[in-house]
């Protein structure tokens, strides 16, 4: 589309495998979300946590994948690049996880935070992504 897959990989610092995992989890998430919004399933208090579970599972898989990449880079004597890559992955995964966790709590009425506070990790991530965009050639 507007970006090729390689440009996206360079900009967002994600691997193609991570993008694929995220797309699969988003598909499952939207299916569960539709079921929840139509009041067919997941009616109880823990319903939103079940709806969001594919996204949390994807986060877990991506973290595992990034850990493996870091270990392999470390073994391949690419320590500095490996640490920088692991740091970026850790920060982005953490911020996205915090956003989803806060959103889930907000939707299940377990917290009184406003949406501006819930989305604050996304805004921080956006600033970091803007910095990465400036490093693109």
């Amino acid at each position, binding site marked *: 589309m*507007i970006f090729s*897959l390689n440009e996206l990989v360079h900009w967002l610092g994600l691997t193609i*495998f991570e993008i694929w995992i995220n797309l699969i989890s988003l598909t499952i998430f939207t299916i569960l979300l539709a079921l929840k919004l139509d009041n067919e399933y997941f009616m109880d208090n823990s319903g939103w946590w079940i709806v969001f579970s594919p996204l949390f599972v994807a986060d877990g898989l991506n973290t595992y994948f990034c850990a493996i990449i870091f270990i392999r880079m470390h073994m391949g004597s690419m320590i500095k690049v490996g640490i920088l890559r692991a740091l970026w992955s850790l920060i982005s995964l953490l911020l996205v996880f915090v956003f989803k966790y806060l959103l889930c709590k907000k939707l299940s009425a377990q917290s009184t935070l406003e*949406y501006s506070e819930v*989305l604050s990790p996304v805004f921080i991530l956006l600033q970091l992504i803007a910095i990465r965009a400036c490093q693109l050639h």
Partner: protein
Amino acid sequence: MAVLHRALFTWFNLLIFLILLVLRLDQRIQWNWFIVFIPMWLYDNILLIYIAFNMILFCKNAHDRLISLRRMVWYMIAVLMKLSAQILVCLKLEALQWVLPAKAVLAPFWVLFTALAADVFVHLIQNSRY
């Protein structure tokens, strides 16, 4: 357009959209949902123009016209699907009297995400780069 310009344009649109979304969700503004989605309409329309422009260029210059054209048509369909999903979301939020089922609203997203996942998977297998 250079990749930096495209990235910054995307980033700026997303930022404005998220700010408007947060303000609307927190009830600080009572704007129509179609107005809140203006950055997205703008972005999608520019995307459509960009793809159409590239399509014409490919038709004139590329050696492997059929494959390039097929790819561009797929991109166009993906953007149109995103656009239709956004229109349905806005209608669901704004026209409450219509009672649109969430399944119908989110169906374009299911198709879009599945197709994108298949596309990325094919790329993953063909290039063997993770």
